[in-house]
């Protein structure tokens, strides 16, 4: 008899439902989901894996898609192959301490915890409590994200905690807060998209980033109403061909202007929902004035999108709202800019003009990226925030948390630094000297990655929790081995704001520990106030209390109901039945109205030239100035530290390739597959060129999943949005030229190497 565990995929925020089964030949688990499955003793080639060209070694668990409203049984390649990492030979299974020779060697947990305790105490004594920092991640379960915030503020006593969601969702979150008073990525269930007549997707390539999502676009495609805004003809944009809809291909960095042009048409062609605007919003007059100067022909000149396409898009959105429904969805492509919050705000303003939010069959949403990118931004690992999406500066929120935690309010530090500033402070006077990193590979994923790596190296002590030696872990003084998704219990909140159960299907390796266990032991050693359970359900019970009364209220949710498969959308106060659709009755501001905030493109100031004007040097070598945009490939996830270790995925996309238009390539003598150098004053990437007409001629694209010489984030700028702290990932000037010669790739150990 084969037992199985119903859980969800370890990767993105779609959180596709999957079932993990131990192969029949192996000893089955006694209880579904609770007792672990032992690792296989012998290779076992499954038919499915062999047919799909999978690894020769069978994974310890078999993955199958499970029917669920979001993925409807579908999984992408990443999901199908996810289990192969569980038995990966490169797995870290013991704490590893870096010796004076730079080599990591195993140490015992006792020694590891003692070293950390000593380092924290020493740093605090010498530089103060804020010299200890914590960097979290949107991949942590709700329980761990919550506990990390508590651990940082009470056990470490530091305000210096932030997380990699600052690089993902912060702009959309800030815009949602400003407009609606609350930020839940999709304020409606994903299935609502199915009936829509018109869907406008800006800067989101779901066909690559979350393929099973595409099923929900089919209705709009059938109605000819899928409208994709992307400077590239991405896989998602290609869905608009054959009558599926429209593809708008603006110049990088001009999304905001395009959105203002759409709002202009809506107002001037009388397409606005005046009744809705009157009853449910404030700020219309100022907004109308602000978009007045963006008539379609002017916007055409600024964005490169023809005026008639702008009009057509506005009309389809308005028409769709009266038919099956209209939705406006934004992704990182428009949000990861220094004006990302304003761009998301412009998208929300457009949706409010059309009366979409708060309707049962229309709306605005932002597509959360990371696995627990939603839950991870609600429960206190953000520098300015306490659990339940509370503001850390709000006295009532502080008092509430002090009560839940049983500590005096004065013990809770104030706001810390957002991620980019936190990372810039590493090793600096008054900066962070001792850093904990969880569920994040900042050496690859941060903007201006070279500077971040320098920062990591300047630390007095760096602790990284990971299950592989990621590029960040490689820099660590101490690596702590933690659990993978199939080895732990917990909850995550998907892109719809629905809380899901992650279930254990497998016994973890003997030396690996949950972050909850690590935090509990360290809190004990640091004689921290309050309690730190290592049991996920106990922590969730505490999270319920902590979130009660907050914007993201989980107080009515418990493990038992999740285990019964109930759909739990927050806010879910005790005694309620949750909130699948927000805003039906009102928005979360005091007067119940949504706020329209006028926004305008800021002039981009030319930054002061660096001490050594590198661009001139490069230009003299025959390089051409181009605009760099970055993004994801279907086969890889985030910094690639997991997916680059899956042989099937790596074989399919083994290296970064620079996507470049044949016309631009021809003018530089670049041919398909030849090596190119992409450089600016921050760093250089050398990789192969991939010629494609899917990209605009003045723009090049790099995926950001690769390290070292192929690390796209060596080129991105750490300039940030003034409101959200989001860095500029999608609009950077680079110089492109033929590389002198190809460079050796550092090949990661894959499971095939065993």
């Amino acid at each position: 008899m084969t037992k199985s565990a119903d859980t969800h995929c370890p990767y993105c925020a779609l959180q596709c439902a999957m079932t993990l089964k131990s192969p029949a030949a192996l000893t089955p688990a006694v209880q579904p989901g609770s007792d672990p499955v032992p690792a296989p003793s012998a290779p076992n080639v499954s038919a499915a894996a062999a047919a799909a060209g999978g690894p020769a070694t069978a994974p310890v668990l078999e993955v199958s898609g499970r029917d669920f409203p979001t993925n409807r049984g579908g999984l992408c390649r990443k999901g199908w192959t996810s289990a192969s990492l569980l038995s990966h030979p490169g797995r870290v299974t013991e704490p590893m301490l870096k010796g004076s020779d730079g080599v990591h060697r195993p140490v015992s947990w006792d020694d590891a915890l003692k070293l950390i305790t000593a380092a924290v105490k020493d740093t605090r004594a010498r530089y103060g409590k804020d010299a200890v920092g914590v960097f979290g991640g949107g991949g942590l379960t709700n329980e761990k994200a919550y506990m990390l915030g508590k651990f940082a503020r009470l056990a470490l006593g530091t305000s210096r905690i932030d997380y990699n969601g600052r690089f993902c969702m912060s702009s959309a979150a800030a815009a949602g807060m400003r407009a609606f008073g609350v930020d839940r990525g999709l304020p409606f269930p994903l299935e609502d998209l199915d009936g829509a007549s018109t869907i406008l997707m800006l800067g989101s390539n779901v066909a690559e980033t979350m393929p099973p999502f595409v099923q929900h676009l089919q209705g709009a495609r059938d109605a000819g109403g899928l409208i994709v805004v992307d400077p590239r003809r991405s896989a998602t944009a290609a869905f608009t061909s054959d009558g599926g809809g429209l593809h708008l291909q603006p110049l990088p960095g001009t999304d905001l202007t395009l959105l203002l042009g759409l709002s202009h048409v809506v107002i001037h062609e009388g397409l606005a929902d005046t009744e809705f605007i009157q009853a449910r919003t404030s700020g219309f007059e100022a907004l109308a004035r602000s978009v007045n100067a963006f008539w379609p022909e002017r916007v055409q000149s600024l964005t490169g999108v023809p005026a008639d396409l702008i009009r057509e898009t506005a009309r389809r959105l308005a028409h769709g709202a009266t038919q099956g429904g209209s939705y406006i969805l934004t992704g990182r492509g428009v949000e990861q800019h220094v004006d990302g919050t304003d761009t998301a705000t412009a998208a929300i303003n457009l949706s409010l003009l059309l009366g979409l939010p708060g309707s049962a069959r229309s709306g605005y949403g932002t597509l959360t990226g990371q696995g627990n990118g939603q839950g991870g931004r609600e429960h206190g690992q953000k520098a300015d925030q306490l659990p339940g999406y509370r503001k850390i500066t709000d006295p009532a929120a502080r008092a509430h948390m002090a009560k839940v935690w049983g500590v005096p309010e004065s013990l809770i530090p104030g706001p810390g630094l957002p991620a980019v500033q936190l990372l810039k402070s590493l090793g600096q006077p008054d900066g962070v000297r001792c850093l904990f990193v969880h569920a994040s590979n900042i050496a690859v994923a941060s903007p201006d990655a070279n500077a971040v790596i320098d920062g990591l190296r300047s630390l007095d002590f760096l602790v990284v929790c990971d299950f592989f030696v990621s590029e960040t872990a490689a820099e660590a003084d101490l690596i702590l081995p933690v659990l993978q998704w199939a080895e732990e219990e917990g909850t995550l909140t998907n892109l719809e704001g629905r809380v899901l159960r992650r279930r254990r299907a497998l016994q973890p390796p003997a030396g690996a520990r949950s972050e909850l266990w690590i935090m509990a032991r360290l809190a004990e050693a640091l004689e921290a106030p309050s309690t730190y359970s290592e049991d996920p359900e106990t922590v969730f019970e505490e999270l319920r209390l902590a979130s009660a009364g907050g914007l993201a209220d989980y107080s009515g949710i418990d493990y038992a109901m999740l285990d019964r498969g109930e759909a739990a959308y927050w806010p879910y106060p005790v005694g309620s039945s949750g909130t699948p659709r927000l805003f039906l009755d009102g928005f979360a501001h005091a007067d119940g109205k949504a706020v329209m905030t006028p926004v305008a493109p800021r002039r981009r100031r030319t930054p002061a030239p660096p001490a050594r004007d590198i661009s001139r040097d490069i230009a003299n070598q025959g390089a051409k100035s181009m605009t760099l945009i970055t993004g994801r490939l279907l086969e890889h996830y985030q910094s690639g530290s997991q997916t680059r270790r899956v042989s099937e995925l790596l074989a399919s996309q083994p290296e970064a390739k620079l996507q470049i238009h044949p016309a631009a390539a021809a003018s530089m003598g670049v041919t398909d597959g030849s090596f190119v150098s992409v450089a600016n004053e921050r760093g250089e990437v050398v990789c192969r060129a991939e010629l494609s007409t899917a990209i605009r001629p003045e723009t090049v694209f790099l995926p950001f999943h690769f390290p070292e010489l192929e690390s796209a984030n060596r080129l991105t700028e750490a300039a940030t949005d003034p409101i959200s702290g989001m860095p500029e990932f999608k609009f950077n000037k680079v110089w492109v030229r033929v590389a002198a010669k190809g460079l050796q790739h550092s090949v990661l150990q894959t499971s095939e190497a065993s």
Partner: protein
Amino acid sequence: MSEQIVIVGFGPVAARLIDELLPAVRSGLARLTVIGEEDDAAYNRVLVADVGVGRTTASALALSDAAALIADGVDVRLGVRVRRVDRARQQVVLTDGTTPHYDRLVFATGSRPVIPNLTGLNPDPAHPVLPAGVTALRDLRDAEVLLQAVSGGKRVVVLGGGVLGLETALAAAEEGATVTVVHNGPHPLGRNIDRGGGAVLAASMRNCGVRMAGNARSTGVEHNAPDGGFSALLLDDGSAIDGDLLVLSCGVRPRVELAEGCGLSTATGILVDHKLRAHHEPHIFAIGDCAEVRCPDPSCSDCRAARGPSGLVGPGWRQAEWLAEYLTLLAGETVDSAGGGSHEGDSVDAAESLPELPTEKPGVIVLKARGMNMAVAGDNAAEPWDEEVLTAGAVNGRPRLQIAQWADPEHGRYVKMTTRGGVLEGLVAVGMPRTAAELVSLFERGDELPADRSLLLRLDGPDQLAAPGNSDPERTVCRCAGVSGTKIQDAVVDGCSTVAEVSGATRAGTGCGGCHSDIKDIIEKHFQAAAAA
């Protein structure tokens, strides 16, 4: 003591300047007085024609809200005119008798329509009194006159083949009016467009239902309407074009009387240097339609080639943004020196080190119209075989002009790219929306065009929208799982006869499901072939 800034004029350019100065006003760094002669705060003049044909409303045109500005501490005076400027006392004398003082005075007086010299029209250009049935198209009152004609299904005669005239004619025709455009020269848009583009443009206008009367010299207007109003435009060949409303669209002229009256240098517009300062007058500036950037330095090459005010709003807005920053820095300097602070030097440096506003490129004209698409920019007159014109000035290593051209008058399409060293110096695009958008953005960025210019023409081709070919068996059919057509074919050969079976064997179709029909096709093709054999 904070600095007193006075702005004369409250049009779109003044509105932008005010918006950009607001932070300085709120912080108390500067005090701001705005004087507008109309009763309305700034509105978007560019869209006046749209109001005139009933496509948008006057209220939707607002760019500023006087009440909000007053709440922010701005001294807003509407319905008042400036009688004169007293430079000796640094004050402006208003029609209401008040005399506000200024430390910095900004002229944003814009321009007024040119009234052609026709019999039957009052010839005084400063105070034209137009007879009934004749209007210019500059403000909301003009728009109201046009709106009544259009909504009444009247015959409209537009005099002038400039961009505003064409836009008005197209919009009015589309809204149901009978419209004739009367212009001199063989084609509309005069020197802004080349011969080929002009011909295609005129043909496209006709296709949109607008009558075009070219090579026409008008001499007078006839007033035989029942109410004594306009009834026909008279031409020099003795013919007449009948109509119920004459819209004068003969260009604009900068309003410089006030500046002239107080002794400032003017040419077409008020002469200003690269800091937008009036010549030899550090307290007075001018921006927008009324300003002409031409510095006093005779050796300045930018200014030798300068063409005078463009009449376009984009350059005016850029001037407003720049001037706001400059004035804010200057105000900071005043505050510092008044407070005896030690930062005085810093502020002076900051203001004077602010990079000057770059010289504007020749204006881009994009026709605002729903039925057709046209963009022109720069100098596009030269033809591909004008050897002399193309090589003129190509000395000292400067490349010669090159022309690439595409003409398809039958389908209303025409493109010309005039380049030097691969960079656009002029362009024409008619009936090619995406090409127009790309060319304009390439022109404004000064980027090099792809060597294969035809790439830019194909943007509007239907092949750009087609799905990628699916004849290659090695192509990826299922992107989600990364399964090629060959693998699916193999699975079918091995016995899979349904999509579900193929999915089970290959994982194809297990992600988004978008490839199910492709898998089905492969299965069907295989079994058809098998049956045939």
